């Protein structure tokens, strides 16, 4: 019962401090999974303990990339596919900044594929969050490297003729030190994964499957966003610590999610500083001058 004497102050949304509320409601469709991912990202930023003034978000172009415009951190909405390259420059110039790259599957792994594999190889200390909605949503629903074989999109009306990537396998093969995949239904696990990925040194990768009711779902009989979520609920199986090669996104059987890879490797800056300061002898006979694991410090 409301006490009429004391004015009841409704506390704001707990994530209000990290939202650019003046720009809400955002542009994403009703039921779009990106909104949930956004919520998990903010929760992860709050949970990870990093200073928000020293956390930056870099994105490319696309639906997911618009997240940079709604999050109240230093955020950079750059050109299509170049988010990871921009983030590389930003991180190397200001190593104390925690850099998150949040973008879509087409942006990061099609046009940006080259930058992705090299940043993973170099082990640049950034956290890449790939929101996978199985198509190019912003431009109306064209096929992407993640579109399942046979799926209908606006640029593959008879069915997609290409087989998709297994992004986690790709990331792991390129040398990413942390690889995980979840669906938007696993909100808390996404938050935990992103928190772990942020706290880990090196190139970390989290892939999140989201419903895209307007572009993909509509053309592939996946129903509303809620029905897609229920589909993910039924079909996803959590298998942690398996080889990502054995974790395909197979819509006919099971969608394997989980935390697949969690290793350690010297980052680009570790290696760069090591090589520039020390005389590492004649290649390939380093013999004892190769950098031991103990030299990797925070």
């Amino acid at each position, binding site marked *: 019962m409301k006490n009429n004497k004391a004015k009841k102050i409704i506390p704001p949304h707990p994530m209000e401090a990290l939202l650019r509320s003046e720009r809400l409601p955002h542009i994403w469709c009703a039921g779009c999974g990106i909104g949930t991912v956004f919520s998990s990202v903010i929760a992860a930023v709050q949970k990870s303990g990093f200073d928000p*003034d020293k956390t930056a978000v870099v994105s490319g172009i696309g639906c997911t990339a618009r997240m940079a415009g709604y999050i109240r951190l230093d955020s950079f909405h750059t050109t299509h596919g170049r988010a990871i390259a*921009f983030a590389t420059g930003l991180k190397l110039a200001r190593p104390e*900044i925690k850099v998150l790259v949040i973008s879509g599957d087409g942006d990061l792994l099609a046009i940006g594929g080259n930058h992705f594999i090299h940043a993973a190889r170099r082990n640049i200390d950034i956290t890449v969050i790939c929101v996978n909605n199985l198509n190019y949503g912003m431009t109306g629903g064209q096929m992407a490297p993640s579109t399942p074989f046979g799926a209908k999109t606006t640029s593959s009306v008879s069915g997609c003729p290409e087989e998709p990537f297994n992004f986690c396998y790709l990331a792991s093969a390129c040398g990413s030190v942390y690889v995980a995949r979840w669906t938007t239904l696993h909100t808390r696990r996404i938050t935990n994964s992103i928190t772990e990925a942020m706290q880990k040194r090196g190139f970390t990768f989290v892939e999140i499957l989201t419903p895209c009711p307007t572009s993909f779902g509509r053309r592939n009989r996946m129903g509303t966003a809620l029905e897609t979520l229920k589909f993910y609920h039924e079909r996803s199986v959590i298998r942690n610590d398996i080889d990502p090669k054995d974790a395909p996104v197979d819509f006919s059987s099971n969608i394997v999610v989980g935390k697949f890879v969690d290793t350690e490797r010297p980052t680009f800056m570790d290696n760069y500083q090591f090589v520039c300061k020390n005389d590492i002898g004649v290649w390939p006979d380093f013999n004892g001058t190769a950098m031991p694991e103990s030299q990797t410090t925070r």
Partner: protein
Amino acid sequence: MHFMNGDYACCEGALAAGCRFFAGYPITPATEVAERMSRRLPELGGIYIQMEDELGSMAAVLGASWGGVKSMTSTSGPGFSLMMENIGLGICTETPCVVCNVQRAGPSTGLPTLVGQGDMMQARWGSHGHYEIIALAPSSPQEMFDFTIRAFNLSEKYRIPVIIMADEVVGHMTERVMIPPEKEIKLIERRKPKVPPGNYLPYHPDRDWVTPMANCGDGYRIHITGLTHDERGYPGMDEETQAQMVNRLIQKIVSNADDIIRTENIYLDDAEVVVVAYGISARSAKQAVREARANGLRAGLIKLETVWPFPEDMIRDVAARVRALIMPEINAGQMVLELQRCAGGACPVHLVSHLGGSIIHPRTILDAIENAATSKVRLKNKKTHVKRVSRQSARRR
């Protein structure tokens, strides 16, 4: 006093200007800039990264600049074409950085090891959309050093990518370079915001059209986007925002053109035939003008140190009182189009050119000067007395 090649001088100029980040990709004839950077930057606490392609290089340079570090890249024709989208991003987001384009003969792969000057219009119009750019054209290793420092100063002052339009001969020639002591080199840093984070608008310019720049990590929680944006940095999808943003980008350069444009004028005061040149062609032109003077012809030279923005007012003034303008360039006529436009029919404009592969011989320019000096061709509207053209207050775009 050092003896070094143009590419190395460019690198040393950048380091003297405070550049501590280089992201590049090897390409002839600009590879030496990257090589020297990879050796020198670790000594100064900077970082050299060789990206996987030029697209990534330009993006990384922009990222590092937003991290607060002066950054540059170097490339040539094919790489310059690849960098265009991100140069456009740098212009739209008003990011200070320097791109050195050591031109070679094109188009496409062209002649990788031989000179050309065919990217001049690309420097101005290469990226999509309408904008203004600053481009400098050094013509010697000493100028590579000096102009790179100036390029950094201009980029920081005006928050714009500055392009150094060198060419293969200037990049690969080895000459004396005088490097002054550190305290004699004047550097300009980007303007910092004076207001607290709550009141800061990332794109609200000061009176000279330049906005103070808050770097990433300074606590300002900026949002930077390549979409058309308003003063808060937020995307705005209407004509008014577009007009406001593009106008700011254009006015920033146009209204400060007097500060940006620099030329070196030789024998200009009483010249009858004026040669307007840039880059390595200016060296040939200097020789030709000296010989012409020795032969009694009243020739003069305007060496363009800044090619963009183009010195329109100066050319208009000069065209009104000379017999002819001559431009030597190693392309089929690019900057000569600007020259013709600015001369406006007040005097004939001649192009001395060839398509690439070697420099223009001073003899060819001297022949053109002699022809122009003795030519009986008169244009219909040419006034026979010298008349000062009134300075135009509004620059037409």
